């Protein structure tokens, strides 16, 4: 089966119109004519993911995120980089075709990134109100206990928290990746998301939560890291693709959390 046939089936099954204007959801290496032996979904096309996919007999990689270290996969800025050349050589050696699915994954309903993230950190669908809102009302707990529970469930080594560990919280807003909703609305106690610029953006949730804590207000942010936040849902993505591409193996090949955390004082 050729890669182009798989992409056609993805577009047909998406449940939303394909937007050709996307610069993200395109081929990064290989093309529609590449013969595919199997499909790996992942968060990032790391060197390790390429090796693992290839070892498993999979030569099509469908990542949620970029391959060449920038959102646009701008190969001009890395053209002279030795690591870029090595990565291209590895992709070529294993005849890998990479097609990113980002924008259309977030347009799809449900958005598997939210489904996977909620599952990974233990947010119960029955607490989501209304369904699909990414807003959860959980039994009241403390920010410290919630963060410890989330950390234990998802295994994140580099998770970070802002806010008073003793703050009483129950209204959770889930974000994914870099698309973190702001923490300031009065009906949100805790934001759980992947990655969020620390300051100088359109709204800086960490400084806001820091000041809220100083003022004694119950606001907290739990940052899982980009990969922990969005990779879980690539399992659902693999299962979805498998449903309409039954001819070849489809599986999640995890990029895994790239970061580890240092103990504080």
């Amino acid at each position, binding site marked *: 089966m050729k890669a182009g046939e798989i992409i056609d089936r993805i577009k047909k099954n998406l449940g939303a119109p394909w937007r050709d204007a996307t610069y993200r959801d395109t081929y990064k290496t290989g093309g529609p004519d590449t013969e595919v032996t199997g499909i790996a979904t992942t968060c990032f096309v*790391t060197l390790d993911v390429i090796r693992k996919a290839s070892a498993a007999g999979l030569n099509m990689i469908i990542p949620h995120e970029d391959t060449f270290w920038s*959102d646009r996969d701008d190969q001009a*800025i890395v053209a002279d980089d030795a690591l870029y050349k090595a990565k291209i050589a590895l992709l070529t050696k294993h005849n890998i075709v990479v097609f990113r699915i980002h924008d259309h994954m977030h347009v799809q309903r449900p958005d598997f990134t939210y489904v996977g993230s909620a599952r990974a950190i233990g947010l119960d669908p029955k607490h989501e109100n209304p369904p699909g809102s990414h807003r959860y009302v959980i039994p009241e707990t403390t920010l410290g206990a919630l963060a410890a529970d989330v950390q234990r469930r998802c295994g994140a080594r580099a998770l*970070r928290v802002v806010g008073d560990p003793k703050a009483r919280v129950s209204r959770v807003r889930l974000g994914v990746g870099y698309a973190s909703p*702001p923490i300031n609305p009065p009906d949100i106690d805790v934001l759980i998301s992947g990655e969020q610029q620390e300051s100088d953006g359109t709204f800086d949730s960490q*400084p806001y939560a820091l000041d809220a804590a100083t003022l004694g207000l119950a606001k907290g942010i739990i940052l899982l890291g980009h990969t922990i936040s969005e990779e879980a849902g690539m399992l659902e993505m693999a299962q979805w693709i498998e449903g309409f591409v039954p001819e070849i193996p489809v599986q999640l090949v995890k990029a895994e959390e790239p*970061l*580890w955390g240092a103990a504080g004082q």
Partner: protein
Amino acid sequence: MRVMYTRDPMTQLSRREFTILAAAASAAPFALDRPVAAAATARELLDRITAQIGVPWKADTVDGLKAGEPATVVTGIVTTAMATMAVLQQAVQTGANVVISSQPTFYARADARTPPAPRGPGGGPPGGPPPTPPAAAAPDDPVFTAKNAFIDQHKLVIVRLSDHWRLREPDPLAVGLAQAMGWTMHQVSGDPRRYDVPAVTVDALVAAIAKKLRASGGIRVVGEAKTSVRRIGLLPGSTPIQASLKMLPEVDAIVAGEVREWESVEYARDQVAAGHKKALILVGRVLSEDPGMQLCADWLKTVIPGLPVRHIAVGDPYWRPAR
């Protein structure tokens, strides 16, 4: 009205030219060379900073007055990486009424004293459908309200100094971070961002950074804990992939403030996976910039002699549950 000018800071001639230009152009002329009396105003402080920062003042900049009255008589100056509530409280306790902040005070680059209007329910992710228009006018926000009330009550003046401070040479944020780490003697000639330190394992280096910068858990690392590193590169603040592409191949470890995970974190991960003995240590944006704002306090003492100036650190905004 802000005076726009370009100037070579090294020559007295250009300073005299500037003074003449400033006197001619400004609605409120001032004399740069007179000793500062106890009655210096925030406006005079701002004008002196503008005149002496050493780089042309930008027309389009985040720097400048963010809160307070320019006519306020300065009682003391505090520099900080971020004018948080805690920093403002400490500033007041020390008798200061002017705060010079590297990062925004009001939780956005726009740095407005009013909260943003809430987004509608369909606020879209990048690449998704456009966010729906604001659902309603901004409600009363307790954090904005309390911070504004504190600023007004204590008649504080808050100035952002970021764009221009980091353009100074040598890079004061890098110099400050190196000083905080005790690496100044190890500087690679002529480069404030490069230090060759005695060989150290990544985990020992991270522990030293956590101790010196008083990290409470915000530090994150790419690389093997037992990799030995010697060549250190500094990227304080927030930096794009281009900075890591240039620096990481030439060093063993980068100590950075904040990067985008899909850029530099993944690049560093692939470097390690390719067999290179590299590490990327992320300390956080604010934690990485506070040492440079200590240098800003030292500099301000020369800009406006006779006024008390001190630095107050924000501290690590983050913590991590015990494992």
